């Protein structure tokens, strides 16, 4: 392999590791599984490095690989898994102090992988419908329907008594007041 290829790759991964892990954690809702997902993604990124390097937006490319790996991993066992041999850390799960959050988390966790990925891309990565469709490799219409189904499923799971967000008053659906994150892949 070429030195420059490896050096470029390592430099890129070091710079993006934190944001890749966070995105993986949001998709998996589990930091251990997130690390497995990132590990598998990094292998694919290395294999496709020439394409990553040539991409107009390497971060968007990496995000696409990670999200598709997440969906694929849950869809099919035909793909060989990557399992990390490192010791699993004993760090506690994210602090949760509210029943609503617990219910919401459970409801989102119960969504099919593609629907969860759609929500993550829309509401964590702040992608619009077209960008989301590009990542998922589907039509914008499918993104809309997946989003609607996912949100509907979450609403049904939460029931009518859980309209307010955790620690804040309820907002109207469609309100886009959450600040965007600048460090996402």
């Amino acid at each position: 392999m070429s030195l420059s290829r490896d050096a470029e790759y390592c430099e890129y991964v070091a710079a993006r590791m934190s944001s890749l892990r966070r995105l993986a954690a949001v998709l998996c809702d589990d930091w251990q599984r997130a690390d497995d997902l990132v590990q598998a993604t990094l292998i694919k990124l290395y294999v496709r490095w020439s394409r990553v390097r040539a991409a107009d937006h390497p971060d968007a490319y990496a995000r696409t690989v990670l999200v598709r790996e997440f969906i694929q991993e849950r869809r099919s066992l035909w793909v060989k898994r990557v399992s990390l041999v490192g010791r699993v850390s004993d760090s506690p799960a994210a602090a949760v102090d509210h029943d609503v959050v617990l219910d919401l988390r459970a409801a989102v966790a119960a969504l099919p992988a593609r629907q969860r990925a759609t929500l993550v891309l829309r509401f964590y990565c702040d992608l619009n419908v077209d960008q989301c469709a590009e990542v998922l490799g589907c039509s914008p219409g499918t993104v809309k329907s997946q989003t609607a189904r996912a949100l509907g499923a979450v609403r049904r799971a939460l029931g009518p008594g859980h309209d307010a967000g955790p620690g804040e008053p309820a907002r109207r659906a469609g309100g886009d007041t959450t600040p965007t994150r600048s460090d996402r892949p």
Partner: protein
Amino acid sequence: MTEPQVRELFNQIADGEAGPSRVDTQLALRRGRARLRRRRVCLAGAPVVAAATVAIVALAVAASPVRPAGQAAAAGGGPAAPRQFNPLVASVTFGWLPAGESLLSGGITRTESYMDAGPIGPDWSLDVYARGQCHLTGSASGLNCPQSKLQFSQRAPDVAGHRAFWTGAGIAWQYARGGWAWLSIPVPNFSALRHDKDMQRKALKIARHVRYDATTPLMFPAQLSGLTSQWRIDNTYYEADPGLLRADQYMLTTGSSRFHPHVGDLGVWTDAPYIQVHPAPRDGTCTPHDPASENTSEIINGYRVVLKRMPIGGLPHQELCGAHADGLWFDIEEFGAHPSIDAASLFRQHLRLLGTNPANWTKNPIG
């Protein structure tokens, strides 16, 4: 009203206590490199030519292996490197590895023989190229090999009388006339290697002990029969089992096999069955519940198999899998709309599984 809640949930997860990362970039790099080499078999680019011609060349190559580099003269003279490798025989092997390290796996294409060694995952990776595959750059500051551009960091001590160069986290040397080898060293970069004399010493010792004249046949747990002479085995990938090299994956190619470079990660061949056979893992499965594909489960030759069809990269793709076939797990993949032999027919009419006892395996995968 759910959307803001979902946003906040996602932000809470992202900002939560992450714990120390278990992600290992160097491991990803080594596994990626190994996968790249394994998959690169499809990128060799050389068109598949008539089987008979190549078979003759391959046999000729196998019959006259290059002498060990240690017996060769200076870089420009001595015996020539082989023009091709025989994918059925591991002619290149590690002659020495550090304590606790052993050969894990390898692969053989017509133009390259590669292998990985380590305690668990690949630490040391060796690529040996056939004659004419690698060329020094104009200023002799680097080496261009198929899919690899190596930049020389510094001149290294000679390897068995041949010129050698440190190449970042690796060492490249001319092992015979027209042939180069490259060893990847488990360090992050040349800066680390330059200060690690022990690692340099190990790398040089590994390089100096590489053998190029071994005749270890790969052992196949399955045998094909009844095929026309146009078919041949290509691009083998093997794993080192105790006492033998077990062929784990390989391709079956014919004159009409064609390479499609833009499908999948690294391109695929059509009319070229990809075959994997190995002892079945305890939890081996063919996982038929993939909503994106058409799956059918049936019995062929007494084995429960799953046939999966789905387009990949615009190409029709079929995959026949058996998770428990006399203790073996097998998988046959084919790309293209009109393969000469479809996966089911290949398995039904031509492939014979040889069980899990290595004593029954064969070094002649086409009987």
